[in-house]
């Protein structure tokens, strides 16, 4: 979407990135008596076509393939699997989980506003209780009793995840600009680059889908596990904060190491050139020498609606011109394979092969001073809109050590992107994401020290 391929200065992203394991890579949980299920992800989805498809594709030219009916499949199918018994560690990681963690299949993203009259101490207790509860939830445990012994007691945990596996659940906590206003005497702790995003061309933001004092990004390979986490975290803090807006995401719209590049709802691969290497994470994602925010990052969230039916009626050549890539393989229009480097200068008969206002041309790092942002979005649907049309799009989530990187990129895209005819940025927010907590501590504790 607003991204496609802004991410690899070498231009060769990720064919075989070979990064060292991310700190929050999930590890299979040993000796758990929960139900275990390993499903071949993309392999299953692509059905029996998987084995032969790559070979067939290799013999066919790019254009021939675009007309062909056989879906291609990458060689990484084997590792793109779901193991529901995986748990992601919560404590004692340098960064919060849910950022570098390989994207899970489902997400629930919710923002909150702090209640009128909420105090600094209320905020402190909220962050401490959330942290403890997230620690429980990510290990596949309830946050308290599901069936209390005392007849007049109300259950602490709502119970719908009872018996479900941890499913690589991560919950990432973000702090919005409102946390650092004078209400909580925290102005002196404000992360240096945290402020509301400026208006960006093309924005048609709705106030009820924008901003927020706090954000929770819950991701899991089981949607009920993610929903349970958000529901219980929201429920336990109603005296301090209330819900603002929420998006439920599915079909991760970004790939982690070893994952096949997924597709957005426009049917195009999304995130071919994402941040993958340690060096890029250090340079573009994690904050260094940032006082209490060292090891943290900034989260930009955009709810981007797609005019689905209109898009679906667009001819394939126009769709491919808009993205600058082929639909099936995901190759740049100047190349054959997904990870071929786009040649933005190439001309045929006096015209540039990749339209300079195509999505990839505007977003590519080589056209943006090398800047990269980590994209970790999900597709969403809200059912039907008031015209009876499909109400769906992209929950765009990016992580970067300077929100201005996103702003610069989107300023360009918002003005010129051919894709703008088919998308609307309707929601927007920015949050500071503190570093991960140590055992015995909680997210954001440094605010109160």
């Amino acid at each position, binding site marked *: 979407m607003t991204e496609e391929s802004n991410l690899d200065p070498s231009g060769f992203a990720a064919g075989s990135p070979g990064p060292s394991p991310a700190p929050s890579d999930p590890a299979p949980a040993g000796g758990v008596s929960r139900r275990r299920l390993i499903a071949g992800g993309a392999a299953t989805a692509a059905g029996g076509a998987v084995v032969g498809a790559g070979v067939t594709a290799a013999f066919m030219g790019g254009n021939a393939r675009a007309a062909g009916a056989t879906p291609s499949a990458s060689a990484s199918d084997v590792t793109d699997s779901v193991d529901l018994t995986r748990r992601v560690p919560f404590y004692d990681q340098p960064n919060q989980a849910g950022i570098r963690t390989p994207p899970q299949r489902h997400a629930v993203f919710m923002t909150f506003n702090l209640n009128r009259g909420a105090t600094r101490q209320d905020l402190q*207790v909220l962050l*401490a209780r959330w942290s*403890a509860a997230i620690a429980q939830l990510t290990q596949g445990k309830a946050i308290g009793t599901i069936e209390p012994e005392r007849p007049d007691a109300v259950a602490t945990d709502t119970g719908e995840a009872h018996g479900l596996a941890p499913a690589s659940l991560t919950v990432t906590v973000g702090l919005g600009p409102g946390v650092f206003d004078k209400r909580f005497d925290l102005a002196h702790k404000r992360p240096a680059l945290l402020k509301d995003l400026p208006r960006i061309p093309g924005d048609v933001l709705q106030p009820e889908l924008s901003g927020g004092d706090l954000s929770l990004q819950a991701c899991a390979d089981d949607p009920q596990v993610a929903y349970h986490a958000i529901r219980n975290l929201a429920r336990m803090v109603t005296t301090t904060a209330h819900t603002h807006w929420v998006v439920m995401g599915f079909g991760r719209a970004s790939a982690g190491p070893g994952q096949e590049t997924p597709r957005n709802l426009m049917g195009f691969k999304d995130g071919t050139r994402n941040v993958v290497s340690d060096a890029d994470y250090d340079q573009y994602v994690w904050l260094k020498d940032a006082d209490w925010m060292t090891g943290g990052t900034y989260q930009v969230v955009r709810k981007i609606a797609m005019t689905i039916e209109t898009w679906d009626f667009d001819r394939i050549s126009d769709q491919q011109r808009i993205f600058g890539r082929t639909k099936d393989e995901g190759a740049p229009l100047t190349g054959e394979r997904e990870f071929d480097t786009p040649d933005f200068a190439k001309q045929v008969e006096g015209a540039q092969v990749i339209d300079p206002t195509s999505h990839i041309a505007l977003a590519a790092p080589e056209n943006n001073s090398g800047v990269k942002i980590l994209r970790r979005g999900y597709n969403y649907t809200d059912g039907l809109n008031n015209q009876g049309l499909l109400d769906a799009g992209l929950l765009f989530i990016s992580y970067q050590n300077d929100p201005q990187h996103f702003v610069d990129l989107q300023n360009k895209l918002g003005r010129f992107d051919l894709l703008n005819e088919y998308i609307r940025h309707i929601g927007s927010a920015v949050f500071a994401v503190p570093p991960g907590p140590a055992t015995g501590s909680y997210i954001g504790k440094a605010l109160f020290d």
Partner: protein
Amino acid sequence: MSHRTHAAAGLGAVLALAAGLSGCAGSTPAASTSATASAPADGSAPVVDGVAQVKVTLTGGEDGDKCTADFGSAPAGPVTFTVENVSSTAITEVEIQSELKILGEKENLAPGLPPSPFTITMNGGQYTLYCLGATPQTQPFTVTGEAAAAPTGSTATLLNQGTKDYGTWVGTQADGLKAAVADLKAAVDSGDVAKAQAAYLAARPFYEKIESDVEGFVMPGFKVDDNKGNLDYLIDMRASNLDEKVGWSGFHAVERDLWKAGKISDGTKKYAADLDTNVGKLVDVVKTLEFKPEDLANGAAALLEEVQSGKITGEEEAFSHTDLVDFHSNMEGARQAFAYLQPGLEKIDPDLMNQVVTQFGNVDDALAELRDKTAPGGYLPWTAANREKHRKELSQAVLALQQPMQKIAEKVATAK
């Protein structure tokens, strides 16, 4: 509503140091260097300035989270339990219980928060340290010797007095309801729509304040699935729960005629007369009710549920749009029930009590913004347009009150 015999607590417990204990930030362990300390020879907790000091430490671990007290006994008198959550994510609450009754507690515990103390005055005897989520969850705590006489009434005495007083208050509301419905009937019989509307609005609050106490009351001789014998249905049914077999009845049948039709028919007069009869029966029932502390807490919670699901939605007063008047009355009923529990709850958990008080204030503030002196009943008419504009804020405020309110019943329960 059945009344179970209340077994009086054998051991009185009194919060000696309510002030300064609320919250956790800035709290420090009670022990101080300047205090006079004495260590009892029997190995029980040391006494500082006349208060025994017990430290309770919560830790996480592979084989279950642990709740550890540095002393398993204390001399009779005031005892401060200082709870520090070092690393337990499973334990969120620590209580001292006597025969399953909660004498004092700390909630909202989490790793990284400052140590948090609570103090209770304990007589000699066996108690239980209850750590919700720990392995094991309970452990014995012994108090030796006799305490000096408790300075004021025990928690149980205060709670029982509260329930009696609440019962009296409910009786006065029932009397008010009876008189107001008689006025409504007279106004309807007179055929004066404006007067009848005014009488309707005057009668509603009495019912809305105590409706949780009569919810679902079925008259003797009727089956539970027959709404003809369900007094609550006959008096307060809505369009949304209309039982075709029984038909329209009660307050909202009158409301529909007065506002939607805008006129009084013979049918309206019949509705008003039936309402008068059924309210008479209800008032007789109400006056026989006896309450336990948990009934008050559950009743208050039920009224908030009414507000959240019936009033904010605009479902209750679908024709007169005076839902906010009912909202106000439901809140008043909840506040009364809570107020009668408050002295006892203050001894058990002053933090929780203060939370409820604060959140009541927030709901009051949110509702006060919707006052409209010119409107019938004194509040903005709860039309679709006004609901659209204001319901989110109201709903969130009520939710914030429901959260601490839901915890009260188990804290004050006397049933075993």
